[in-house]
């Protein structure tokens, strides 16, 4: 049996009285493009932070590539790439300086770091901005740089928290191709985003978290079939979009969707 790339058992995180993530158990197979969805404040970023060692779980266990994972698991960190919520950039460095710094922190040798830095800068269309400090980059440019830094060491598992936010359509298309290329070479990608079309196009498996609890988990087709089966006879035949599946599962009622503000024009 093939080892799961990511495996969690009862993953829980509490902040005082608030339980942000509760009893999340999931498994992501190696080579899978996994979409992790949920409304704002559902616990997506908290889950990613725990899975990448940025946040200590209150309870539960995690395994990455078949090994227990925690903040001290340095050998596993070498296999992981992350674009976290805050992008983890150093504003007072230039893009090449930052990429070289990250490469060296992951233990790459000089030639590899230099080569990959140049390739990534060219690929991300950041080569013309090599003298500019990162703090002066646009949000989209910072996202591209964060993604470049996340892959410079060739990770086997990639965690992406809203990687396409603020990225223009051309760059987004390019990044999608890059990520699909990684999948075809055996990498595993764990993606959270609010752009459901991207998940629908890229991900083979999806999990939905709502109010800290996992409310759906499976292949897109399985989720579609599950939701369709609960619909009235005539509607069962139509092919549901991910947005419809998502809204159906997180329970957005008709009233919530049509509620309006009386004082707005």
């Amino acid at each position, binding site marked *: 049996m093939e080892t799961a790339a990511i495996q969690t058992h009862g993953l829980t995180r509490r902040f005082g009285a608030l339980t942000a993530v509760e009893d999340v158990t999931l498994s992501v197979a190696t080579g899978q493009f996994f979409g992790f969805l949920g409304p704002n404040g559902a616990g997506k970023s908290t889950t990613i932070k725990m899975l990448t060692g940025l946040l200590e779980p209150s309870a539960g266990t995690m395994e990455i590539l078949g090994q227990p994972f925690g903040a001290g698991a340095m050998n596993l960190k070498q296999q992981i790439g992350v674009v976290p919520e805050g992008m*983890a950039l150093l504003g*007072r460095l230039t893009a090449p300086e930052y990429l070289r710094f990250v490469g*060296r922190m992951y233990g790459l040798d000089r030639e590899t770091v230099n080569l990959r830095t140049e390739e990534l800068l060219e690929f991300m269309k950041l080569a013309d901005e090599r*003298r*500019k400090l990162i703090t002066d980059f646009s949000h989209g440019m910072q996202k591209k740089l964060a993604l470049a830094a996340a892959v410079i060491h060739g990770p086997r598992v990639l965690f992406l928290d809203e990687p396409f936010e603020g990225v223009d359509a051309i760059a987004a298309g390019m990044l999608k191709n890059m990520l699909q290329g990684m999948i075809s070479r055996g990498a595993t990608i764990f993606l959270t985003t609010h752009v459901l079309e991207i998940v629908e196009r890229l991900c083979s498996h999806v999990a939905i978290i709502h109010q800290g609890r996992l409310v759906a988990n499976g292949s897109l087709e399985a989720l579609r079939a599950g939701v369709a089966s609960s619909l009235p006879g005539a509607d069962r035949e139509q092919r549901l979009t991910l947005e419809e599946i998502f809204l159906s599962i997180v329970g957005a009622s008709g009233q919530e969707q049509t509620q*309006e503000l009386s*004082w707005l*024009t």
Partner: protein
Amino acid sequence: MADLAGVAPTTVAGVGPLSRLSRKQYVALATMRWRLLTNSVRSVQGAFELGARGVAFLIYALMGLGLGIGLGAGAYSIASTGKWHILPALFWLVFVVWQVLPVALASFQEQFDLGMLLRFPVNFGSFYLLNILFGLVDIPAILGGLCCVGLWTGITLARPDRFLWTTFVLAVFALFNVLLVRAVLAWLDRWLAQRKTREIVSGLFLLLMLSLQLLNPALRQENNHRSRNFKPSPTRPKVVREIPGWTKAARAVLPWLPPGLAAESMTQAAEQNMASSTESLGFLGLYILAAGAVLGVRLRSEFSGENLGEAPARKERVEADRRWLIDGSGPVAAVMEKELRTIPRSMPLLFALGGPLLTVLIIGTVIRNTASASGHPFLLAFPLCVSYALLGFTQMIYNNLGAEGTGIQMLFLSPTPIRTVLLAKNLFHGMLFCLVAVLAGIFAMMRLGVPDGALIAATAAWLLFALPLNLGAGNVLSLTMPYRVNLGRLSRQKGSQASALLSMLIQMTVMGVGVAVIEVCAHTRRMWLATPIFLLLAAAAVFAWMRVLGHSDSLANRNRDELIAKLAKTE
């Protein structure tokens, strides 16, 4: 379902800084600040921080009171004896406290960034007024204000008949200082925001330091020349020295500068010459207008949403860009190289490093001028000058992760233990410290002369004790009380008063130990003993530093949430 009913006329109209809308905004801001304060005590660290702020405020208040009482006594003496020609010196002292202290404290005190107001319908008048109002609650403004109250009390007690005029003149002088300091800080931030201007300012700073070095031998040469040609008169007291010629120009200019004008206005009023007094005050008013205008120009640009970003990128040869400053692929070299590249781009850190060196020159000069009749400065002059250089490292050492910002996440994500990161930072800061200490030592020797060999050895050994102790304590505070440092700004930083207070206490302890050991050894005529004592203490300090480093990963993991929340979150 509710229908759309259009926009109800609930917005408040207003254009001026005192309009209804503006007043509502001031109330909202005050409420927001109050909420921030009350919310800050929800956590233990927040409560500790608030307590530390209270203690720091008390210390500054005591300093201000001390200064105020001293100035008050001086002003009383001047006013009651009619020696008004000395009064400008007091006004100059207040001016220096008010204008120099903010730059020195800019990196260490929390200041509110008014840029966040630009998204709201705040008019320029309100923006300007708020900038000044927030400036009034700065520590230097409070100190300067207390100094003015001291002057006012002293003069009023001696000359109650001049009560109203004294109040008016001091209020005008205070207003000028408030406007000027806000203008200086606003322009400094503007200049330091861009690489080119930053480099020019750094260059000017270095030039200033070199000029002071050249000034010394030049003045000495002139004095020697004068003393060779000088035939002392038997009737002239020995203490009177010939006043150098260049001071004549200074004496001609100083009365026309704001502190001189304020003092002149007071003097003329005391001599019942109200026309001249009003004239001086009028000139001071012109300075106020000028300072206000300079501030206005800057704030207008900020208000218009100016982008202080770097100039458009220049295409340069890729090969030149590939250079590594510190060789080796390991994380230690990577972190050291990152630090090396970051510091020249950070004016708060450059100022923190260069400021104490400049002060060493000034302190050295003061000590030399006040040296005993034998011409030898007091015993501790050299070690104190050199140890003063350590003060510049306070922020760097005691908040060594503060400049990482969101990059702190990278440090936790990478397979490099935090202790390796701290080790690299400590090594880099240690090397930088040694360089600065050597420079400070050279500067001190140039001003004070070469001290006894045993004293030099004791000073070096004291530094060997002070450095690891500070690094160890700095690592603990950096992991437990971090605060985000904006490297692009000199002012409007967010700081941690608790960290500042604790670091100050540790620095004072280290200095106290140094003074005690040297004094005791000198008193017992065993100066040679100071070096081995300090070396023993240094060994203990290195041991403590290594223990801290060994536990830094567990400490970092325990405080990981707090570290990331404080350093990575943008507020």
